């Protein structure tokens, strides 16, 4: 039995977490102020999914990783210059909004269509990966909808580990409440995994991988299909930054003993 997989990773871009974000309301609904000039990065949990996919593909010869990414084409190109140096993949790009206010069901429809459009897709060997939540919408809903559209009912979220057993089945660890993991055994592909952090460090940049990837990344960006995703049926009454700004008391010249006493008193209140 072949143990090679077609691994499709869904991953988009988000503003660099160090940026200050401010909501604005435009004709199409809420958005981020200066969204197009904010530096962007690959969504962190989607990044973990991509690195886990590449690691799995490396262990099982014949496996292939596709990255399906929906975002403004110019921003995608910028982010791919870095991401492409990390691990080998083939990009399928979709040109459309990537902000957190778009509806997950509309995003899922676009992603599922793109996955179905991958040439030579064999659903019996298909693993769909993604982040369990994004750093933009943070809903943890899109991947399940993609899975439903593809007819995949073996789905896992908050995944930290995937082990392929000799018989082709998987052992999967999912995060659940209280710092615990649920352990499941799945018969095999097709399956969908929304990754949490996993166990792999971010790969170092490898210019050779970058050069190989860019041969397919640039053409994929050029032919990126424009998709319309939005907020149909949703009425936003407000989108606002939290108003609470604390009056921070800065204690500079107290001794460790004094500070310790104050902390212990506070803990006991």
């Amino acid at each position: 039995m072949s143990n090679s997989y077609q691994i499709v990773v869904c991953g988009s871009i988000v503003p660099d977490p160090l940026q200050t974000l401010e909501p604005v309301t435009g004709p199409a609904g809420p958005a981020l102020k200066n969204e197009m000039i904010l530096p962007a990065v690959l969504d962190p949990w989607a990044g973990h999914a991509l690195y886990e996919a590449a690691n799995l593909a490396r262990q099982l010869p014949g496996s292939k990783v596709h990255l399906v990414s929906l975002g403004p084409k110019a921003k995608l190109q910028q982010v791919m210059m870095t991401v492409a140096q990390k691990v080998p993949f083939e990009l399928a790009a979709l040109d459309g909004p990537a902000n957190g206010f778009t509806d997950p069901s509309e995003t899922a429809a676009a992603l599922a269509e793109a996955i179905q459009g991958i040439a030579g897709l064999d659903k019996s060997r298909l693993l769909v990966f993604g982040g369990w939540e994004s750093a933009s919408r943070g809903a943890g809903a899109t991947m399940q909808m993609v899975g439903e559209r593809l007819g995949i009912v073996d789905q896992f979220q908050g995944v930290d580990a995937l082990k392929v057993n000799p018989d082709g089945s998987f052992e999967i660890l999912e995060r659940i409440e209280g710092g615990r993991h649920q352990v499941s055994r799945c018969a095999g592909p097709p399956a969908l995994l929304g990754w949490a952090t996993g166990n792999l460090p971010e790969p170092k940049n490898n210019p050779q991988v970058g050069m190989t990837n860019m041969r397919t990344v640039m053409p994929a960006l050029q032919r990126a299909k424009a998709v319309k995703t939005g907020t149909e049926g949703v009425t936003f009454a407000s989108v606002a930054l939290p108003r609470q700004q604390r009056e921070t008391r800065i204690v500079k010249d107290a001794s460790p003993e004094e500070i310790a006493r104050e902390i212990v008193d506070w803990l006991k209140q």
Partner: protein
Amino acid sequence: METILFLAHTEADGSLGKPALEALGVCQGLQKSLPGVQFAAALVGETTQPGADAIAGCGASRFLAVSGPDFGQSRYASDAAAAEALCRAAQATLVVAPATSRWNRVLPGVAQRLGGRVDTHVTGVSTDGAKPAINRWYYRQRMEAQLSRAQRPWFILIDPGSQPAAPIAAGHAAVEAVAIPLPDSCKRTQVTGLRVPAADAQTIRPDARLLFVTGAGWTKKQADGQTHVPEAEKLIRGFLQLTRASLGSSKSLVDLGGEGQAVLSFLTHLNQVGQTGSTPRHPKGLSTCCHGEEPHTVGWRFINERRAISLDPNCGWARGKADVLYVADAFAVMTRVNALLETQKPA
């Protein structure tokens, strides 16, 4: 006219968890404020009667359940089939459910099956005239939105801890069993167990009164030019044992392990709080050796009282993110905190 469905899964003993009772309280609020609504309750689990009896007095006009050994597992395929059948049987337009890991995994997919929409991590539900509206956060708790939706069914998953649990009178609930023939294709996955840290190694305590966050500073060179990782471990473990606090960490500290640097042995990515970690709910939080920049503090959105110990008086905590910032050496302070707590420990 809306039909509200309270949708919950039972625990292994057939009871309902606190998050379920919080979601039920939201349903009761909607029932009171929306005109002419129908209200039904539906449960999924190996056994559901004890859970239904516990909420018999909640005001629901119908109690529905999918029960049996196949539905005791927290598994996507069987949970989706059960939730779909219950939503159809109740003809629900608003489905209110607790945002547990089990329901977070499955209900967005069920919304897709039913042609509906879903909002997860909901922190508030209100009504504007005849329309329900919800509050949720975007960009990892950086901005809050209030929104309503035209599509139905609308699945609303209530974040645990964000609402008070409903006080409900128990009794006997007449449960309508909804039968589902579960095909083999829904049994390809089997839940085989849980992986739980040993009791003394379990540092994540969702019910703790205090969140204690450690930053990368604990593993950096100190004033003597040396790192003191074993000493840091001892101080942190000691504090956790004395206070029963929940341990959080910045991403940078957890990631050091992957970069081959010295790291606190008991920290994992599960401890991570912030941009790529969790956003826990605790009454108090104490940060140590963490600079309090935005990617960290977004994880503190639901911590009420915040204090921090940092050597940098201009760190992020000083800019309105903490109530008190102690500019001091965390090693020195925490040594004395532990000593004080030790003396005050009940005999």
